[in-house]
């Protein structure tokens, strides 16, 4: 929340938001689905997009903001090009997920929940991704990287552009 985000051009925002609303038939009951699709367009939920969604659906901005802040899957700040989700579930935990996370944090130089200065990485922790046999693991742009050791982390990060 700390980083200042520049205001976007409303015309450009509407060009991306309108087709999404069209697809969902301007149904405010589909708000979560609409926000998911809007986030897919921008990689996050820009302030202008939320205002546009509220206006076009004819619902209160406070409701859109409430939903957008409720779900962890939504981000109100820009996210990095690569999403790193380190699993902190029980199985990964006992196999040293804490050390894996620490290595990611020191390697990239950010804390969990933050995005790196160059917008390359967003580092997050998740409860359990249901792939306990692979633990400890990281979900890297929706791909599972399992059986991690601290030594494997640097090569993984170097592989990314």
């Amino acid at each position, binding site marked *: 929340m700390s980083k200042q985000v520049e205001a976007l051009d409303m015309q450009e925002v509407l060009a991306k938001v309108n087709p999404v609303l069209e697809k969902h038939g301007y149904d405010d009951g589909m708000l979560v689905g609409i926000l998911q699709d809007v986030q897919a367009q921008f990689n996050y939920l820009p*302030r202008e997009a*939320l205002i546009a969604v509220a206006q076009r659906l004819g619902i*209160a*901005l*406070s*409701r*859109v*903001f*409430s939903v957008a*802040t*409720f779900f962890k899957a939504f981000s109100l700040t820009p996210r990095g090009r690569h999403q790193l989700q380190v699993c902190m579930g029980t199985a990964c935990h006992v196999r040293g997920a804490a050390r894996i996370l620490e290595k990611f944090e020191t390697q990239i130089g950010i804390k969990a929940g933050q995005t790196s200065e160059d917008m390359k990485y967003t580092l997050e922790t998740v409860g359990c991704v249901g792939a306990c046999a692979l633990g400890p693991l990281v979900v890297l742009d929706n791909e599972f990287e399992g059986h991690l050791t601290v030594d494997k982390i640097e090569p993984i990060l170097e592989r990314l552009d």
Partner: protein
Amino acid sequence: MITVNINGKDYSAEKDETVLAVAKRNFIYIPTFCHNEAVADYGSCRICMVEIWTKKGKNKLVTACLFPVEDGLKVETNNERVLFIRKNIAELLLAKCPASAEVAEIAAQLGVYETKYRIEKDGNKCILCALCTRVCDEVVGRKAISLVNRGINREVAIPFYDNAAACIACGSCVYICPTNAITMTDKDGIRTITMPNCEMKFALRKCNSCGREWIPEKQVKYFLSSAPGLTIEEFDLCQSCRK
């Protein structure tokens, strides 16, 4: 008409009334925070827990403000089981709102003076009952505020913590707050509404006769736009000078 038994005495009630409504009418005290006649009941504070037995033999603890009465329902508002759970709820509320005199008062009624739970945030008064957001939605119709985030980060806020566009500065949220977590002052032509996480300022309109600043400009604008017959002259005089 149906008959409900509360604390061993029979009372008549309408179908679909809540336990709390019947109890209140008959002067049976049940503590509440999140109940207010102006808005629909919500059941968030849990302090009004009572024990019920239905005719069919169901026995459980329910919130009096939400549970609809039925014929032959037996209610106890003050037995050991109820007081045990209510005291625990009071302790949780004390941990949530260490700065609230109102929470401390109801807790003291129950004999609870300290909490075994960790104090969440010093100085907090908000119990997250959502009365403010509900009155803004149901009565005022502006929906300027809502509950945002979730879990331990849940709080009342205006959109983006800075967008008070929908607020008309009516102060309904201030008046309805059961713990005075939202406050309001009118000074030097400015109405300031202070929420736990933000402060909003609104210009006030002066009375042409006595000079008192009596209504927020945004509220006047809202009235004018929602009632086509109204003219701006109607707001020249305050309530006292209008007679």
